[in-house]
């Protein structure tokens, strides 16, 4: 479907205009996103994202599966925040069942979520370096991420799609080595974090490519529905962990990271500082995991009462909302996901139009898009 605006934009192309197709198979789009770009010289004058190359109708599939099963489909949306997606769905079901999960399960969930966020930001940092022409960050970022993946492997059984949350708590208890390994990771990561700044943050070439590039005003960030580090880089306070604390986030001390510059470098700084905040949260909880059950006993077949249930969480990329309508049977009547990447992508035209084509890659990298989450 080409809309009217696009037809006008494309048909009114001047002779010197150049239409460029980026994707759907392009290394800097990090997935199957296709961008139709109109250029005048090197300046981008119009961008039209085309979606749907990896649409799997996850929402519809959820409506055909039971309340226990649909959770695991959402690992395939934003696969870098798989655990946090699972948590959002489990929370929506728990809301319907009016279930208060055990304290231990809550702490485990927060710990896992923050580790997921760290792993996701590390991968983003690695890929950003690669996008902007530096190869070493890719290996440095993956080195630290690998340690987290091993922790997940040990406790959850898988590395990327953890599938660890169930309605009522978590699937297993923590592995006996969990605390030891997390301590080892924290020690190593805190030692390695200066390397991140040495390689990228302090690099003049990197700063010149990101400072003042891709400005997004706070008003635009709000009107496009941006969330997560993209909006916080423009000074919009939107951290769900602060505003609507869930699963015990109200009891941990951490700061919401805000930057006011609104450019690519600000978004970069937000994510770098968020890593430090995540480390802080993990440090507070890792030695104080309460004893007790890790799971509330639930029936084998879950039935939710009639009604609507909504849960929201802060994934590594922004706010994920899960809207669930139940008609009293064992399957959801309607599922709707409010995914952060979709809204963040809509700001791309605002920040990239008027800039140079070379800056587009920087803009894309700092939005940190995960394409399967856009298409679902």
């Amino acid at each position: 479907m080409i809309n009217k605006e696009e037809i006008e934009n494309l048909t009114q192309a001047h002779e010197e205009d150049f239409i460029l197709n980026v994707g759907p198979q392009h290394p800097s789009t990090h997935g199957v996103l296709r961008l139709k770009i109109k250029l005048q010289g090197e300046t981008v004058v119009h961008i039209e994202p085309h979606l749907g190359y990896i649409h799997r109708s996850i929402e519809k599939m959820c409506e055909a599966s039971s309340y226990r099963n649909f959770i695991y489909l959402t690992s395939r949306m934003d696969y870098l925040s798989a655990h946090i997606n699972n948590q959002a769905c489990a929370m929506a079901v728990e809301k319907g069942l009016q279930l208060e999960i055990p304290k231990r399960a809550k702490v485990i969930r927060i710990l896992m979520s923050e580790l997921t966020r760290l792993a996701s930001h590390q991968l983003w940092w690695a890929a950003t370096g690669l996008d902007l022409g530096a190869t070493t960050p890719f290996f440095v970022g993956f080195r630290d991420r690998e340690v987290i993946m091993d922790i997940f492997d040990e406790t959850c059984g898988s590395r990327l799609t953890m599938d660890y949350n169930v309605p009522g708590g978590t699937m297993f208890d923590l592995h006996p080595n969990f605390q030891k390994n997390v301590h080892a990771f924290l020690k190593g990561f805190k030692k390695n974090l200066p390397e991140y700044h040495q390689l990228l943050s302090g690099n003049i070439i990197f700063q010149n490519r990101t400072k003042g590039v891709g400005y997004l005003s706070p008003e635009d960030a709000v009107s496009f529905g941006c969330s997560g580090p993209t909006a916080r880089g423009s000074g919009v306070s939107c951290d769900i962990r602060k505003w609507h604390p869930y699963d015990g986030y109200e009891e941990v001390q951490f700061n919401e990271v805000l930057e006011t510059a609104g450019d690519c470098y600000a978004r970069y700084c937000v994510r770098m500082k968020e890593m430090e905040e995540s480390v802080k949260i993990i440090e507070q909880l890792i030695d104080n995991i309460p004893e007790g059950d890790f799971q509330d006993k639930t029936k084998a077949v879950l039935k939710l009462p009639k009604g609507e249930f909504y849960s929201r969480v802060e994934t590594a990329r922004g706010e994920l909302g899960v809207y669930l309508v139940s008609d009293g049977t064992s399957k959801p009547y309607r599922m709707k996901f409010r995914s952060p990447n979709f809204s963040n992508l809509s700001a791309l035209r605002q920040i990239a139009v008027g800039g140079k084509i070379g800056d587009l890659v920087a803009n894309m990298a700092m939005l940190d898009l995960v394409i399967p989450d856009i298409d679902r």
Partner: protein
Amino acid sequence: MKFLIEYIGTVLKSISSLWSGMRLTGYYFTHPKEIHTQQYPDNRATLTLGERFRGEVVLTHDENNEHKCTGCTSCELACPNGTIKIVYKNVVDEEETGKKKKAIDEFVYHLGMCTFCNLCIIACPTDAIKMSHDFEHSTFDRKSLTKILNKPGSKLMKGVE
């Protein structure tokens, strides 16, 4: 003049920040011990995986070729994407009652459809199935991904209901 100074300053700063990045690269180049990479296909013999690692679903058999699956289909119902199919046959219970009773004929497992979510393992009341650590699943033929998990001639373990 001012422009020239600024320009040269930027060039010098760029070189210094390039140098600081290259120093780190050089450090790891000269300290191969601190690199975490594993030489995967070569280290197959020593590769260890976590005990909860999800490779593929297997039906455990003991030395008498007996398994614990009663054919209750809990796993089939728990699976989100229809990976498991249990096919029945009627067998005569010779030793005790002599009556006909149901038993599994084939435990069909479509590996290509499995999302490794572990729900079937949790659902099984008799702990008949478990996750193996085998993860090298690539084949040339899609048909080989459909597996019959119960071994030929195997039967239900005594005392498992």
